């Protein structure tokens, strides 16, 4: 399809273009016919036509829980979405080892940590440790990677220092706690710090976590972002692609999260 020719899509309930969506929310009102009407209007304000309030229950004194169905009047033009898909080859374990040996002739040094006060190590461990994730072995399992896992609760300053000391090719940052966007601030602070140290261009910066996607990572000044369901081999492929030349656009996008 020609990119500029618009392609409008809306929600699909059980018929093409019916726009059916479901919403749930709490309003700070006690249940009543008036509250029900309020919920209907609230749904209408979001562009739902003929909203149906299917339940109204008092969830707390003065707070009411609603479920609403309605047909959305909105649609989006997906031909206009410019999304930088994170494209990578899918080299096998052996192919990766071989390519690094051939093209780089030394091990790729990566330093990873879950930064700030975030204590969630499972994600970064899944990527770095031998054990890996969902049957896909971690970077430790590759001869061509020298993986340093600093664990969790690591301050940016410390991470940056270790990375310099180890002459790391890449820094892998995990951010899981996202309340009030602390993950963005935290991640961005590291970028600023590295810039200040004139070190930013010397390393690849990878960001990952359940609420991270490639787009967000780029916005925050990282080189790539990895979300839920990431496999260590996805990361290995990305690093090899970036560090062992042959930048390419082809290849398949990373498998989307299965939820």
């Amino acid at each position, binding site marked *: 399809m020609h990119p500029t020719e618009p392609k409008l899509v809306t929600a*699909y*309930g*059980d*018929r*093409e273009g019916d726009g*059916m969506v*479901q919403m*749930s929310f709490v309003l700070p009102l006690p249940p009543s016919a008036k509250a029900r009407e309020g919920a209907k209007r609230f749904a209408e304000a979001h562009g739902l036509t003929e909203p*149906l*309030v*299917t*339940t109204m*229950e008092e969830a707390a004194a003065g707070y009411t829980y609603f*479920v609403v*169905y309605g047909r959305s009047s909105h649609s989006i033009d997906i031909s206009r979405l410019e999304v930088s898909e994170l494209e990578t080859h899918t080299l096998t374990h052996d192919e990766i080892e071989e390519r690094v040996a051939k093209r780089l002739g030394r091990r790729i040094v990566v330093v990873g940590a879950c930064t700030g006060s975030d204590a969630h190590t499972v994600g970064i461990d899944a990527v770095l440790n031998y054990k890996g994730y969902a049957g896909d072995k971690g970077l430790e399992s590759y001869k061509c990677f020298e993986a340093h896992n600093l664990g969790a609760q690591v301050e940016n300053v410390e991470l940056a220092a270790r990375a310099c000391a180890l002459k790391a090719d890449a820094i892998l940052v995990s951010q899981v706690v996202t309340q009030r966007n602390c993950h963005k601030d935290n991640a961005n602070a590291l970028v600023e710090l590295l810039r200040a140290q004139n070190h930013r261009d010397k390393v690849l910066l990878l960001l990952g976590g359940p609420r991270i996607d490639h787009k967000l990572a780029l916005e925050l000044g990282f080189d790539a972002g990895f979300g839920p369901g990431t496999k260590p081999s996805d990361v290995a492929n990305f690093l090899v692609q970036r560090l062992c030349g042959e930048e390419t656009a082809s290849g398949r996008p990373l498998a989307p999260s299965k939820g």
Partner: protein
Amino acid sequence: MAKVPVDARVVDSCREIAANIADDVQRFIEGHTTVGVERTTARAYGVEGLDDQGAPLVNVLVDRCHAQGLLSHGIALFLGGALANGAPSVNDAAERLAYGRDWGPLPSDTAGAKKALVAHTRDAILRIDAARDQREATKAKFPAARTPLKYVIVATGNIYDDALQAKAAGFAGADIVAVIRATAQSLLDFVPHGPTTEGFGGTFATQENFRIVRRALDEASAAYGRYIYQTNYSSGLCMAEIAWMAAVERLDMLLNDAMYGILFRDINMCRTFVDQYVSRRIVARSGIIINTGEDNYLTTADAVEKAHTVLTSQFINEAFAKRAGLAEEQMGLGHAYEINPRIEDSFLLEIAQAQLIRQIFDRHPLKWMPPTKHKTGDIFQSHVHDAMFNLVGVATGQSIELLGMFSEAIHNPLLMDRYLSLKSAEYIFNTARHLGDEIEWKRGGIVETRARQVLSEAHDLLREVERESIWEAVAKGAFADVKRKRDGGKGFAGVVAKGPTYLNPFVDALEKGKG
């Protein structure tokens, strides 16, 4: 398996009583035919098409015959007569009779009429057998599905959307797809024609619609490597005709139950019992699995007090089915998870009932229905309610499970509703796969006691029905708390006593098939 104590003597006695109840009805059935039966016969012989008003030829034909008061002879006699008189084809014969200036005299040469039908009768049976063979061949290509089979409904009103939804259901893991009928169809005394795109609450059952969905499901089966069953509804005034269409269009299952029509659609008893018999004869021959509607009783009657009425009706339905030549393996007797969820230990009462029925009808592909009546618009809670139902389904080894939908109280299922329902059912079937094998129920506990109680209440009710006859019992509201009169309801005018010369080689052939 988490067995409950079942007194074999009581069960045997229940079956004997049910046999007597059914025999009484069977005597009536043998003496009567209906406009529905005769239209079915005509279709089986190849009569098709519409008149200029869009009325099916079979209706014009049979109604005209009935108007003359001649239906007691059977439409076959007239078709055979016309053939004997040189009509080039059955359809041509039908058109002559239907559209001709007058109906003409009673065929004098009955033997000739009969003779003229022999080849057509054979073809009619062959057509059904061919479809059956094709089904079995297709099925053989795929691994047998694991029970409970996951049954979902599509009901957009538009057959093309239904076909898309049916495939989507296959993608999401459904084993069986039903296209619900438009709400009024069971009251129609004719079967609509061609593909349809408008319908309330469902989509019309037409032969063409059957084909469209069959094609979609065959594609889905191939794509997803699982055989996907197609089902529809053979209840209401066109029970037998729809059964025939389903047979030749290779449907796998049919909701087929006179009691449902009587109680929930106010269809006349005499009419629908006769229609049901012929529809089940066709079903028996075609290897279709029927689903009965006892589950519906608990939507109008209380599921705790009236649990035994479901079991009672199942014994009777089984007896009816046997008399139409169905094998136990074709009898998908219906039951449901409809107890008020707010009742303490309702989960245990549900298990007791489900397990009891599972053991009594051990060779039957039981149809296990989800909670519906107590569902509300809180889709989150509704989803959990269905989860408990799924757990009982897998723990008691139900065969065909119609999956609950979290939107039950709101709308016919959307694509998303079905997807999430299938996802949840698969999770529960798998996480609790062998739960049933692990459990033994405490002696004299809530579950055992409940199972005993339901069986003995069913036994008592059967005795009562036997005493009064089913006609009376239904009139008194024995089932679903609904009362219906023997001569009341829709379609009574279409019932005709067979005359001494009544002719129907097609049904005769089906009956011979029994032996």
